[in-house]
């Protein structure tokens, strides 16, 4: 095994090319440590552009190697994309959050990755470059190939950054999770919401729940159902029901029964929606 801390993008690309499938990109490596490491590893976390957090050209942009701790404590993320801060602050333990990255959270492709669930709720896109030098942008929700497997091939592709539109006037986001304990536990269910209100009515909504599929899942029917409605008790209980009806889950001896998980999907999605709407109505609450 070799480990290269790349100092620029060219070095990353050429190392992957030289590795011809036997070298792969790594950022925080917190998940990779749990696996056998047959590869040459190319660490991109020293590239200046991969740790940037900025608002530019109408987008919040985060480098792929931004750590969970950095994202969770960034004033920009807290005010413009609270869901991401909330997702990042619950991952693993403090030590994991100090090393693990949001790009890694997406590419690792775990079904209920907290940062990824928040990013998909926010409508984030990933900027990816391959070893031929082709750049492309793909929405994060389309980056799941299979269970624990990303579309991004880390032996020939590099995720450079993630970007999404900031939650500005009338918009809010939120993330919720439920786990067997308060740290170091995969969620039984996590959820995120982004909502845009106009005159108190829902104009746009994105609702995400996991783990109900190999990928965090948009609840498209529930989203559609709430367009044009105000977020009141009736809507919330409607969402609770609709969200649970929209997904299929299985019993898990280690986590919980399917029935309870469905119940949690409803509760967590509606909680995320309610909080996101509160933040949309009162921008002062965005940072709370």
């Amino acid at each position, binding site marked *: 095994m070799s480990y290269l801390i790349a100092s620029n993008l060219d070095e990353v690309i050429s190392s992957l090319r030289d590795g011809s499938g036997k070298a792969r990109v790594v950022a925080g490596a917190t998940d990779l440590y749990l696996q056998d490491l047959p590869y040459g590893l190319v660490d991109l976390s020293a590239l200046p552009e991969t740790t940037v957090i900025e608002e530019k050209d109408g987008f919040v942009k985060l480098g792929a190697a931004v750590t969970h701790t950095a994202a969770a404590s960034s004033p920009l993320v807290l005010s413009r994309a609270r869901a991401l801060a909330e997702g990042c602050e619950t991952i693993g333990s403090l030590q994991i959050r100090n090393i693990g990255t949001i790009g890694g959270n997406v590419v690792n492709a775990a079904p209920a990755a907290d940062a990824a669930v928040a990013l998909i709720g926010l409508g984030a896109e990933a900027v990816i470059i391959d070893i031929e030098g082709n750049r492309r942008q793909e929405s994060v929700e389309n980056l799941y190939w299979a269970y624990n497997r990303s579309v991004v091939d880390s032996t020939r592709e590099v995720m450079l950054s993630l970007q999404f539109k900031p939650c500005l006037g009338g918009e809010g986001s939120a993330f919720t999770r439920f786990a*067997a304990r308060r*740290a170091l*536990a995969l969620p039984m269910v996590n959820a995120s919401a982004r909502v845009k209100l106009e005159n108190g009515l829902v104009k746009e909504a994105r609702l995400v729940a996991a783990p109900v599929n190999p990928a965090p899942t948009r609840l498209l029917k529930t989203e559609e159902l709430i367009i044009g409605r105000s977020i009141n008790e009736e809507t919330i209980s409607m969402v609770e029901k609709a969200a649970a009806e929209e997904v299929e889950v299985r*019993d898990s001896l280690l986590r*919980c029964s399917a029935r*309870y998980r469905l*119940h949690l999907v409803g509760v967590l999605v509606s909680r995320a929606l309610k909080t996101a709407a509160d933040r949309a109505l009162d921008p002062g609450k965005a940072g709370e």
Partner: protein
Amino acid sequence: MILKTPEKNTHQYGKVEGTGYQSPEVWSKVTGKAVYGIDLAMPGMLHGKILRSPHPHARIKKVDTTAAKALPGVRAVLTGAELENRPFGIAVEDELPLAVDSVRYIGDEVAAVAAVDLRTAERAIKAIKVEYEELPAVYDPSEALQVGAPQLHDNFPGNVAWQREMERGSSDAVFAGADLVVEENFTIPAINATYLEPIACVAVDDPYTGITLHTALQSPDAVRNIVAKALNYPLSKVNINGPVMGGGFGGRVYGNLKVYILSALLAINSGSPVKIQLTREEEFTAGRPMIAAAIKMKMAVKSDGTILGREADIITDNGAYSGQAPWVSKTLSERNDSVYRIPSIKTRVRLAYTNKIPTGQYRAYGNQAANFAAESLIDMAAKKLGLDPLEMRLKNCVREGDITVHGLKIGKCGLSECLQAAAREIGWDHKKTGRGYGLSVAIHANGSLVFDKKFRGASALARLELDGRVTLFSGEQDYGQGTHAAFAQIAARALDVNPSQVTVESKETKTAPFSTGALAMRQTTVGGKAIQLAAEDLREKIFKAAAELAGEPVTMGNGVLYSITGQNLELAEIAYHYHNTTSGLSLTGEGKFVPEESDYDESGYGNISVAYSYAAHAVEVEVDKTTGALTINRLVAAHDSGRIVNHLTSRGQVYGGVAQGIGMSCFEGYLFDEGRVANASLVDYKIPTALDLPEIKPLFIEVEDPAGPYGSKGLGEIVMVPVLGAVANAAADAAGVWITDLPLTAEKIYQAMAGWECEI
């Protein structure tokens, strides 16, 4: 170069009361210098690995080790068929070092290998070919007891590993005349002790000294006896030398006997030192968790809350081999009966063999499992009678002078004071709305006689060193619970010196006095009493030698002796005087504590311990009605453990015991899938993190008990006991429903609140 540092002398000098004395060994741990079992390495050391059964129950048809033996670097390969294979065990001799004819659980030891490195040993294990014929298996203990169930051991027909029926008083009459009978079924899963350091053992065989096992154990002397017998070695040719222990919590009283015996056999057969270290997965799948229990319990009460009687039908899950399960089942089935004035009891307990992981013990020996059932029933009864659960407990709890239904003699006892203090501190009279409150009480013996009726006490030596310091020789082990710090303080008090002048030596079985071990909460009371007696004996000998040296009578203060004419004599001077006049002997005090009064009859009735400790816990919780999530806000732990020797380590015991109690209440428990452990890692077997724990408030009700040293008693196991009942009662108070199946997960609470049929 050694830098001069001024000696810190901030501790209350030679006093037991109120000190925060910190044993210097703590520093070797926090600075990473302590050498644990997993750190050990020896010149020429080989690495051992165990081949385990993949089947829950199967006949071994053939074991072919040819390919494994041919691998370069492999030094020894053992199979059951090649060994003398003497049966061994703790309560029951039902184990062999390696399986011969059949395997009885997934993880059963089939073969063992020693090789030059771990990777080679793992390859060799994989190269062993075993042909099995699968047999029907049974996983549920009540099914195992039924006629026609697959049988595990020929000499234990019906899969009954142990059973007991007892009746004291006339239960039927009591229940017939009761105003109220409450009855419920409770289930408690198997629990892993989850000590941080997996078990590791380096065995060294030497033609002159015999076998030395370098491994950390709570009861090295007990393990030494079993290993000597299993190896057919003379006892004096087996020595256990303990490195620093990375946690025990009862799980290392006997640790993992297979590991010790197999590492010894591999060392004997290879001629080299052999280290076997369990992986965390092996700890979970082939370690020795505490037995799971199903408790059907009913209680008869009068309308004023007076308890009239209790009946219990208990089935405990032994797993494939017995370990300590009979003894744990015994404590589980009776100790809780003695915390209240219960005139009659009727109990049946059956320990069933199943094709699952064998069992051992955990802090509190099943007393905490029964606490969950017994204390839930108290609150169920109080609710039905419209009584305050605090008043009902105060009405019934034992007091000084009582003799309990099992014959325990209640000596000094602050139980009702513990109850009142815990209730006051939690705000029992000013409960907040939206919160749930629960209470629970406990009694636990200080060194019970269940291990060996003939051997009931402890002994120790106290030696004055030539530099004036004191060394205590004791077989009692310290694995972080603070025993040795307490011993230093007890001896310091007897000798009127600073505890930092006292060192405790307990490392090797061949030199340390014999000890039953760090179990049954016996060390402070029984071991500590022996220390006190040894130190007092030494003190007398010092006086005698000093008077001889001074030529006149002497008195002592602050570690210095004064003669009546005003001569000062340092301890070192006296030590040298004795050394010179005896040509090299040391002044040595002997302490032997032999509690005469403890005994029990054939039915188990009698005063089984020299003293008992008491506790009452109070808990405040909240339940999220939409998810069932339980948050424990505060826990007050009021304890009567006599005079507290060391408040610093005592608080540590309370924090740790409460954390483990909350783990067992709300998080932990083995999950099985067709006999296979489904949560065999610390990822899936969830113990609480710091974030999951409440504010913990220890309160010490210091009722001095003359049974122990300077009025002190044990405070180890008991801390965990009341947590379970108190948390269960508080959760029920908040949720409005009872959960009778541990752990109390959010899902179970929500299901009960929503009225779902139980799905898991």
